[in-house]
């Protein structure tokens, strides 16, 4: 029991970092992802093309690679490298935010495809502008369609935060590995697994409530 507590306490400290990366990524990537969804639907070729290429690259390469690139690669770009040099934690948030925006963009795109053309027509004949139609009619319905996928992606995000340890950000897994190496005892990995499971339990509960709210 004493050993359990001695392993857990530093991990709780690391959990703060894990949850920070998690929360910042979620808050940044959902609106950014929706912006990419709209851009990918744009009638302006350049805008549409940019969004599609962005999504292709960010989904097509490993997140781990992107993380290393943001932290180690960007500062090496001649000329602008100095402006693109980030500390470990901001670098982690930037890489995660950009990556998850691409995934959310695709989830939202699917959600918009599920909305009947008749909804747009009804809004149009009632005189609603495109913006009013989006806000009042389309987005609420899109959220309902997307929620299960967003839940899935959010759970994946929590687990993916373990990757930031490779650029030296001290989160849950970092302390677990430290304890395992120090004590030659893998018990700390079990504790780390428990920590992730507890947080994901809470996330799942929150999304269940949201799904009930959007169950019209």
């Amino acid at each position, binding site marked *: 029991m004493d050993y359990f507590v001695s392993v857990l306490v530093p991990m709780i400290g690391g959990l703060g970092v894990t949850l920070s990366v998690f929360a910042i990524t979620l808050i940044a990537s959902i609106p950014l992802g929706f912006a990419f969804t709209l851009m990918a639907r744009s009638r302006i070729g350049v805008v549409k093309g940019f969004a599609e290429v962005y999504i292709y690259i960010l989904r097509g390469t490993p997140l781990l690679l992107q993380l290393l690139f943001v932290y180690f690669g960007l500062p090496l770009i001649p000329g602008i490298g100095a402006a693109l040099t980030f500390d470990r934690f901001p670098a982690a948030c930037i890489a995660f935010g950009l990556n998850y925006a691409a995934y959310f963009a695709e989830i939202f795109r699917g959600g918009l495809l599920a909305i009947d053309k008749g909804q747009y027509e009804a*809004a149009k*004949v009632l005189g*609603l502008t495109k913006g009013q139609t989006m806000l009042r009619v389309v987005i609420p319905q899109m959220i309902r369609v997307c929620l299960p996928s967003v839940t899935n992606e959010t759970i994946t995000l929590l687990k993916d935060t373990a990757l930031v340890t490779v650029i030296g950000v001290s989160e849950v897994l970092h302390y677990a590995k430290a304890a395992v190496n120090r004590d030659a005892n893998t018990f700390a990995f079990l504790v780390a697994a428990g920590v992730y499971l507890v947080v994901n339990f809470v996330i799942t509960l929150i999304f269940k409530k949201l799904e009930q709210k959007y169950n019209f």
Partner: protein
Amino acid sequence: MNQIIQVSNLNKSFGDNHVLRDISFEVDRGDVVAIIGSSGSGKSTLLRCLIDLEKADGGTVCMEDKALFKDGQYGSPAEIRAIIAKMGMVFQHFNLFPNLSVRKNLELAPKVVRKEDPRTIGERCEKYLGKVGLLDKIDAMPGTLSGGEKQRVAIARALMMNPDILLFDEPTSALDPELTGEVLTVMQELAEEHMTMVVVTHEMGFARSAANKILFMDGGIILEEGSPEDIFVHPKNERTRTFLQSITRKE
């Protein structure tokens, strides 16, 4: 000024498919016009061109002397909006907003488009829901309503904007016969109150009893036009006769 809609030489193609060929007709204030004809004859496309859900390729449509398009040329988006704001539309598949309650479906457009006083909106909402017999469903979500109830809500929603003319695109085609009756009753009442209506329908009984003008469409043209008596009792065209025979045989 008695004329409310004037259509002349309206043309529309989808690719190589010439759906509407030189359509011309008029709708007077208080008219109930029924557009009948077999599937694919262009009825729905014609109706959708009147309210800018389809873009016409050529011809002219005027609404109360203002052109929605003239010789195939459309006005500015603001002009188009101003014209279609005077029209209401009821769809085959209702197209209620499933995320909003019945009340909010009715109140959305007056609130966000016209920015009317909430109290007058609320009063009108209750008035029109009462008119279609669904005041008790005011707080229901659309998903909990039957098809007939959804369509009556959709009619009330269209009335909320006080349109000068109501367009109906096969309003009962998605309903079973039992529910069809309750929707037709509401439409019949509107007709008796001299609401101007253009109704694309397969309900010959309704066309005969409620309409004062029938357009029979076939192959993208108006083949025959006249009073219910002209069309149903003394059809001039052989094609009209065979169409009506096939319909009555089915009924």
